[in-house]
């Protein structure tokens, strides 16, 4: 329940997608809010039944916040699973991973800026979940965006020791959610990603967190929204091939894209 208590920190008075998502991050897993017309910063939280949470200001205001099924499923354990808000546009529901069109990336790194601004409120490129590599091969440059492809066989989740269990897969989005409190920083997921896939996982600068899991911003990926060239496409889970096919090292992708663009017979 302690995570729910953190709802105190949500600033409902300035409710927007962006601020909501930040608040949701603060409670370690996104709650789904719908039809919320918030008014006041709240003081206390009570769970009235499995479906609703009543947030009560000590003075006057009451807001009713709907919690979706997944949260109720993981009750009473601490909720650590991300979900989509129920007002997500239809085309995003079931989104699985973000596939870059490598031939068209211009290397502006606006996606890195957007990712970092979304999650940390500052353009800290190191922390960005998407990383763009400007790579020089034989005389010409290619720019390769690399991010978590949410491989369906989840080598990172498998690598996480059973008794730790810090990694879970969101049933709707396929996003891998890390519980930083459970994580022991053993690094096995980082090694698994590095050895088997693209190697997007890494320790934070302070070495107190594992970074690199794409949470799809809870349903509205900011990198996709900001890309000036529509390079990033959201691939829906049901109709697409497994993202692991693209979970390759940037230099491998870079060499192939270089050949595609610049090689001459």
């Amino acid at each position, binding site marked *: 329940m302690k995570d729910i208590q953190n709802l105190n920190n949500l600033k409902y008075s300035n409710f927007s997608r*962006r601020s909501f998502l930040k608040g949701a991050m603060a409670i370690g897993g996104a709650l789904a809010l719908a039809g919320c017309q918030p008014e006041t910063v709240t003081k206390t939280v009570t769970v009235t039944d499995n479906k609703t949470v009543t947030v009560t200001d000590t003075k006057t205001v009451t807001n009713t916040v709907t919690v979706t099924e997944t949260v109720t499923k993981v009750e009473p354990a601490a909720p650590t699973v991300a979900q989509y808000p129920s007002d997500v546009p239809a085309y995003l529901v079931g989104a699985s991973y973000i596939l870059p069109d490598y*031939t*068209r990336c*211009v*290397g*502006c*790194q*606006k996606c890195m*800026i957007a990712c*970092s*601004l*979304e999650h940390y*409120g*500052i*353009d*800290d*490129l*190191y922390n960005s979940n998407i*990383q763009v*590599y*400007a*790579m*020089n*091969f*034989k*005389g*010409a*440059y*290619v*720019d390769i965006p690399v991010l978590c492809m949410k491989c369906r066989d989840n080598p990172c989740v498998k690598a996480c020791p059973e008794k730790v269990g810090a990694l879970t897969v969101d049933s709707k989005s396929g996003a891998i959610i890390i519980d930083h409190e459970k994580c022991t920083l053993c690094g096995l997921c980082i090694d698994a990603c590095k050895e088997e896939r693209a190697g997007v996982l890494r320790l934070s600068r302070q070495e107190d967190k594992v970074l690199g899991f794409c949470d799809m911003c809870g349903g509205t990926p900011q990198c996709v929204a*900001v890309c*000036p*060239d529509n390079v990033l496409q959201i691939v829906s889970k049901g109709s697409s091939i497994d993202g692991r096919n693209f979970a390759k090292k*940037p*230099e491998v992708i*870079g060499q192939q894209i270089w050949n595609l*663009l*610049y090689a*001459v017979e």
Partner: protein
Amino acid sequence: MANGYWEKLIEIDMTTGKVEITDRHMKYVEEYLGGHPLAAKLLWEALKDNPGIDPYGPENPLMFMPGITGGSPFGGAASRYVAYCKSGITMAKKPFFGEKSSTIGYGTSGGKFGARIRQAGFDGIYVTGISTTPKYLYINNGKVELLDASEYWGMTQIAFEKAMQEKYGYQTTVVSIGPAAENGCAMSAIVSEGGRAAGRGGCAPVMGAKKLKGIVCYGDQPIPYKTTEGLAELVADIDNVQWSHAAIGYRRAFGSSASLTNNSDNGIESVRNHREGTNPHDDKIGTAAVIMNYFVRHRSCHACPLRCMKWGVQKTGKYKGTMAEGPEYESAMNGANWLIEDLGEFSAIMEYIEDRGYDLIGIGGTVGYALEAYENGVITSNDINGIKLEWGNADEIIKFMDAMIYDTKNEIFEWFRHGTTYAMQKIDEKKGTNSSKFAIDVKGHSFAAHGVQGQPNYGRCITYSFSNRGACHMVGTSIAAQNTMYANNTGVMCSRGGNTPLGMKHYARLVNFITGRNLTEEDLVTIGEKAWNIEKVFNMLNGFRREDDDLPRRSFEDALTWGPKAGAVVDEADWEKNRNAYYEGRGWDPETSYPTAGKLQELGLDDLVPYVNDVIKKVAAEK
């Protein structure tokens, strides 16, 4: 801290190999903010009492300064840096210090390097001294090392970048010089990402003289904003402003190559060594031709939505497999200016220039001179190792450029290495010829790819004549535009992605957000004007005077013979009136071009007045 500056300047003494982190710049940032004006002040403070130093000597400080907005997430403002030093190329007509006399020199470049220095935790780099062995600088998030570059000396830039990326990872950004600058070619460039070049101003040969092969930089930290509250909103807002600007689609589609056909059609392209203004082969190497036959990839500088960098590859013909960043518009200096008529040849030339690290504008002027001198018999193929230097002959031109880098025996190539005007003077002196008309320079610095004869007004004449680094197409076509440009250069803003869509209004917002200060647009323009005056006085100390602020004779004498502007030429008498109006508008003496004491005092530059008075005395004594 956290008022926008790291308060850390990397200072390197190449002579001793000592690397220090200082705050030398901090006492000037309140007055000069950052970027180009701050570099101008630092150079002035370093050299004001010893302005006659050899630019290729150890005393010349070479600076790499990103702007105050460098490393920020604002497109057009984030990515650029200025390289700044006493120029290695410019020349005065009556110098005080002989061949050592030169103007200030600077070149700006986009890419990612300007952002990376700041993201690595530094406000700039300040290099003095001269090393006996080649070195390169490695910067990684607050750590700095000066390392041995012997094995990389002589490498082309693209090969050096590849080696460094393989060594330090694919997210490092590299700026470096190529064989041209290493071997003392004054028209050379400091290049990043294969095609982003700080080429003008003669900074790269100074870097070469210091034996600094390159700077390898990795940085991923946010810059020290005064506050981050509202950062995301400001980023979104600036993005909106850029996307709302009318020219964004135009810039995204063509990059600067749009001007190839546009300027050719208007009779203001550089054609046949600035003899003409319309490219007769524009259908083969103009905008539409390169869009449809050459470009394969767009690229952007850090945080910019314009993606105006275009990479192309030649897929067929004799030159297939050659690839280059460009043609940019200024590449016309190596295309139309040499009467190149085939895209494959153009591609080969561009690739060669980028690889060897030439300043494409400077080499455009120098080879343009050589082509015309050869045509007129001033130089013969015997003088230049049997090379048949004919208009539009790409293979022979490449041979000639190669000899300019590598031939140490033939004295004519030694002269050419010093630039057009220097070579012209030496050749005329030796042969008794007069080829001065073919040297299209101001202060020894080549015209860019914009002709002046076909210009409808004197805007381009003003940028070329009065720029403090010699002929320059970037500094603004009026006094107000020049001061604004220098004000924007406190952030080393891009003219396309930054200045044009954002303007001073939004630029002031960015500066105030980052620093927490409360500067108005007027405050910023004043900073620009102060920097301009400081540079002018520095040039005066080296002997530059009114007669140096003039255009080459061709501008007045050779009317265009073809194209829509046929017959156009600059009216010399009328231009003279415009010159006087310019000096008066600047608050300078129209007779001598020197800033008046009143103007300097008005700008708060009282300490410059005695220096100006000394020059006036010195000039009077000459007579």
